[in-house]
C-alpha cells in the first residue's frame, strides 16, 4: 500500500513539474506567436514598446552577454585552476575563497545590481552602460562558474597528473593539455548555467546597463536587455502584454540557442584538444 502511494506521489510530482513547464511555454507560444514576425525582431520599439520591435534590445542583450563571458570565462577558469590544482586540502586561503564563493552564489541579484552601480557605474565612472552591466553580470555568475569548473577539475583522475609529472611535463602543460580538456564537460555545464542566469537577469541590470531602448553605438552606451524589456512591458506599460509575450518567447529561444552553442563549442574544443 505504502509502496503504491509512494510510487503514485513520485509520478504525480514529476507530472506536475512537467505540466507547469509545458503550460508556461505553451502560453508563451500561444500569446507570443501572433505578434512575432521578422519585423518584430529587427525593428526599433515604438510607443514605449507596445508597437514596433525589439531590434536594439536584442543587440544590447547580445553585447551584455558578450562582455559578461569575455570577463568571466578567463577569470573563472584561472580561479578554478588555482583552487583545484594549487591549493591542497586544508589550505587556509583556498578554504576562505571557497566559502566566500559559496556565499556569493547565494546573494540575491539585486545586491549585485547595487554593487555594480556603486563600483562600475559610479566609482569607475562607466555610468549606465553595457560595459558596466556586463561586468556586473560577470561578478554574479562567477561564483557558480568557478565552483562548477573546480569540481570538474578535481574529478579528473590523479593518474593523469602523475603521468604528466613522470614525463617531466610542467604543471602548466599538464593543466593546459590534459586536465582542462578532460574537465571540459564540467566547464561547458558551468558556462551554460552562467549564460542562462545572465540572459534571464533583470535586477542586476536595471541600475547598471539601464533601460534605454535605443540602438547602442558602443559598449559605453546604455542598453536595455531583453529581460529588462519584458519586465518593463509587463509591469509598467499598460497594453504592453502581447509584446511582452512575444519578447519572452524570443528570450526562451535565445537561451536554448546559447546553451546549444556552448555545448557545440565545448564539444569542438574537446574534440580538437583530444584528437588533433
Amino acid at each position, binding site marked *: 500500500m505504502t509502496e503504491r502511494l509512494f510510487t503514485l506521489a513520485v509520478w504525480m510530482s514529476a507530472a506536475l513539474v512537467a505540466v507547469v513547464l509545458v503550460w508556461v511555454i505553451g502560453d508563451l507560444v500561444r500569446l507570443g506567436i501572433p505578434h512575432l514576425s521578422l519585423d518584430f525582431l529587427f525593428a526599433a520599439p515604438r510607443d514605449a514598446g507596445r508597437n514596433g520591435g525589439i531590434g536594439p534590445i536584442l543587440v544590447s542583450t547580445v553585447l551584455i552577454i558578450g562582455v559578461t563571458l569575455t570577463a568571466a570565462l578567463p577569470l573563472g577558469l584561472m580561479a578554478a585552476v588555482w583552487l583545484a590544482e594549487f591549493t591542497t586540502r586544508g589550505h587556509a586561503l583556498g578554504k576562505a575563497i571557497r566559502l566566500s564563493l559559496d556565499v556569493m552564489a547565494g546573494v540575491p541579484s539585486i545586491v549585485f545590481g547595487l554593487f555594480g552601480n556603486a563600483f562600475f557605474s559610479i566609482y569607475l565612472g562607466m555610468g549606465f552602460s553595457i560595459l558596466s552591466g556586463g561586468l556586473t553580470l560577470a561578478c554574479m555568475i562567477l561564483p557558480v562558474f568557478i565552483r562548477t569548473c573546480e569540481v570538474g577539475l578535481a574529478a579528473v583522475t590523479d593518474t593523469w597528473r*602523475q*603521468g604528466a*609529472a613522470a*614525463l*617531466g611535463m610542467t604543471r602548466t602543460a599538464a593543466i593546459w593539455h590534459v586536465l582542462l580538456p578532460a574537465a571540459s564537460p564540467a566547464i561547458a555545464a558551468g558556462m551554460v548555467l552562467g549564460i542562462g542566469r545572465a540572459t534571464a537577469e533583470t535586477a542586476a541590470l536595471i541600475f547598471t546597463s539601464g533601460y534605454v531602448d535605443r540602438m547602442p553605438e558602443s559598449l559605453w552606451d546604455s542598453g536595455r536587455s531583453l529581460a529588462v524589456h519584458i519586465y518593463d512591458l509587463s509591469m509598467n506599460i499598460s497594453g504592453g502584454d502581447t509584446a511582452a509575450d512575444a519578447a519572452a518567447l524570443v528570450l526562451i529561444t535565445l537561451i536554448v540557442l546559447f546553451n546549444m552553442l556552448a555545448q557545440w563549442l565545448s564539444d569542438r574544443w574537446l574534440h580538437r*584538444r583530444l584528437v*588533433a
Partner: protein
Amino acid sequence: MTNYSESPYTLGSIDEAVACCAPKPQLKVRALSVSYGDRRVLETVSMDIYRGCITALIGPSGCGKTSLLTSINRLTDMLPSARVEGSVCFEGQEILDTTVDTLRLRRRIGMIFQKPNPFPISIRRNLELPLREHGVRKRSERASRAEQALRDVGLWEEVKERLDSSALSLSGGQQQRLCIARALVLEPEILLMDEPCSALDPISSAVVEELILRLRGRYTIVIVTHNLAQAKRVANYAGFFWMTERVGKLIEFGQCQRLFDTPAHALTQAYVDGVRG
C-alpha cells in the same frame, strides 16, 4: 607460442639482449628513508641498481616499494607530506638535492604505473605531447620518434591506421604498451615500473612481460611486482622488502636466481616458498 621471426618488435630478439656479466651501478641508493607525515614507510634502504639490468622489487603490499620508486624520480615532491632522507646517486649526481631540475630528471628516468594512464587524447598526441614539452620543435621529428617508440613496443602495426583516435579506445594491454612507448619516446636511461602487469589480463600481461625482456640491455629497469614467477622470469637482480614494526625494510638484495634458490634470510626463504605473504 609467439613466432619471434615475424615479431613486430624492432628491439631485436630477447637472446640478443645484453646480459649483465659485468654489472656497473647506475643508481646508488644509500640509507634512503621515506615518511608521509609522521608515518615512516621505508627505512634506511641501500642498494645498487645496475645499468642495463632488470631489478625486481618484491615483497608484500605496503612495505614501501612504490615509495622507493617515486623517490628515484622525485614524484614524491607531488605529496606535500612526503619526506625523503638519505641519498640516491645517479651517475655522480645527487637526485634528492633540492636544486635538481626534476623535469630533466624525469625525462631521463621514466615511469610506468600500475594502472595504464594514457591521456584522454589521441594516440599520436599522447606520444608527441611529451616530445613537444621537451623542446622537439620539428613536427617531422616528433612523428618519426613517435613511430619508432610505437614500433619498439610492438604497437605500430596495431594502431598505425588509427593514430588519431582516442588512446582510451585501446585495450588495457595496448594502453599499457602505449604508456611504455610514451616513456620510451623521451629516450630515458632508466625505466621505473610499478606493477606494470597487475591490472592486465593474462595474455596482455604476457605480452608486456615479453616487451620488458626486450628492453633489457637498452634500458635500466626497476620493476615492482607481486608476481614472484614474473620476477624470476625477467629479473637479473631482486630486492626483497618486508615490514617489521610497521616500517618497510630491505631484507635481502642480490642476483635474482640466487635470491630465489638460496635465500640468505629466513624471511626471504619463507616468502619465496609462499609460506607467508
